[in-house]
């Protein structure tokens, strides 16, 4: 008979312990490979201090340039969101496995995966090289990013609907499109609105970035200011971007409530 003390309530899980240990060892190793050290850290702090000091006070004297850049970024974001969502609607529907046969949904899913496999910046570089500098390249890049993100969410929303409601509409003799309009769309609309406002938010942020690689918008001015060490201008632009995102947040929250 086993003694009372030899019973084990929580058996040691050696695979987990080894896993955590291995992760810790790798983090230390990778850090040393990349040349992290206490010295490097303290020089970094010094740099940071000087950098921050040169940022203040923010310099809004070039507000005309900033304003036109921001305006272009907003245009890029809104156009890209509009067409991105317009294209995502059919793509998302084709990818929904509960309404589409497998031979339609799987190729569509592969296409969506392709759209989302690259960061928007990489796609933007491709488009800048392919169709030249300017806002069009930025718009195209963000449309691709929107399709990759939104159609996947659309497809998932469609896959979660109640098929009983759809079946009842189908049983009245409604055609496919009528069934979509009356049976599917009402069930997914509020979520679609949520995703769309989220994507607008995301595109606004990304639209400030595509300019860095020549895709138009405020990113170009931001990048120039960095390169010319005009850090006070950089801070001014950053403040504008932050306020833009906050305004977008408020507007999208309001839109979601309206379409509840």
């Amino acid at each position, binding site marked *: 008979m086993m003694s009372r003390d030899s019973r084990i309530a929580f058996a040691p899980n050696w695979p987990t312990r080894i896993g955590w240990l291995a992760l810790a060892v790798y983090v230390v190793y990778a850090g040393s490979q990349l040349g992290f050290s206490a010295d490097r850290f303290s020089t970094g702090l010094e740099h940071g201090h000087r950098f921050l000091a040169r940022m203040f006070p923010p310099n809004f004297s070039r507000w005309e340039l900033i304003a036109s850049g921001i305006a272009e970024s907003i245009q890029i974001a809104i156009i890209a969101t509009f067409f991105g969502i317009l294209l995502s609607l059919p793509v998302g529907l084709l990818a929904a496995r509960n309404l589409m046969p497998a031979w339609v949904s799987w190729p569509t899913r592969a296409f969506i995966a392709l759209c989302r496999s690259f960061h928007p910046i990489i796609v933007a570089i491709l488009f800048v090289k392919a169709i030249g500098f300017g806002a069009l390249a930025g718009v195209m890049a963000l449309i691709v990013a929107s399709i990759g993100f939104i159609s996947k969410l659309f497809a998932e929303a469609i896959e979660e609907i*109640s098929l*009983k*409601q759809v*079946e*009842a*509409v*189908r*049983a*009245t*003799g*409604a*055609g496919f*499109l*009528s*069934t979509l*309009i*009356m*049976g599917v769309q*009402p*069930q997914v*609309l*509020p979520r679609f609105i949520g995703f769309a406002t989220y994507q607008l938010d995301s595109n606004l942020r990304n639209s400030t970035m595509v300019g860095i690689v020549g895709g138009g918008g405020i990113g170009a001015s931001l990048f120039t200011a960095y390169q010319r060490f005009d850090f006070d201008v950089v801070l001014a632009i950053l403040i504008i971007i932050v306020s833009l995102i906050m305004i977008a947040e408020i507007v999208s929250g309001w839109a979601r409530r309206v379409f509840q």
Partner: protein
Amino acid sequence: MNQPAKLATATAQPVGADQGSLVIHRLRKEYRAGHPVLREVTIDFPSAGVIAIIGPSGTGKSTLIRCINGLVRPTAGEILFRGQDLAKLTGGALRQARRRIGMVFQEYNLVERLTVMENILCGRLGYVPVWRAWLRKFPQRDIDRAFDLLDSVGLPGFAAQRADALSGGQRQRVGIARAIMQEPDILLADEPTSSLDPKTSVEIMEILQRVAQDSGIPVIVNIHNVELARRFASRIIGMTGGEVVYNGPPDGLTDADLKKIYGGENWME
């Protein structure tokens, strides 16, 4: 209340027994090969009145009803109605046929986020073009009829309510109105009272009975409650194990028949 007249489908006219009756011949359905849910079901339905199908759960009652409007495709057999074999229809022809087959569901299956009016007008989707559904520009005649139906199922003033704000009994009334909106030649009801309390169940059965009388169409009702079946049906069909074991008038249904349908007898006391 002047309800009865209004529940008639707009095209209701006396039909000859042959024309309006539904004949199911050697119907077979297997979801998995070799495991028939329905085996060689043959039923001659009367051309009007409430027809109750009773039987234990899992005996193929729902499958039978769903074969009639093509929500389930039969494996073999014929479903003859108004000169057509419904079992053979596909695509556009099936949709055409479905327009004239109303269906009422156990869980109502209303589109929850649509209003009562929109749900009832869903019954016209087989008739109106897509753009009208999209813009909610239904013909005025349909809208007037929807309002009349709403009154006659006892929900006046509910048109603008959203379906998810209704109680079970109210939802089922809307479900029936949606089916009648189709101007059906036949109405199918799959356990229409199983999710409702006893009093509401009776009210729903009364409405279905009125539809059968006023429109002169067959109303086929799957039902678990034998008492309700006896009370409202003019014909009872008993099924067990995917086969019909009773087909006759309610007063002909004996305890022996019930024993054959449900098995055992202790439950009857």
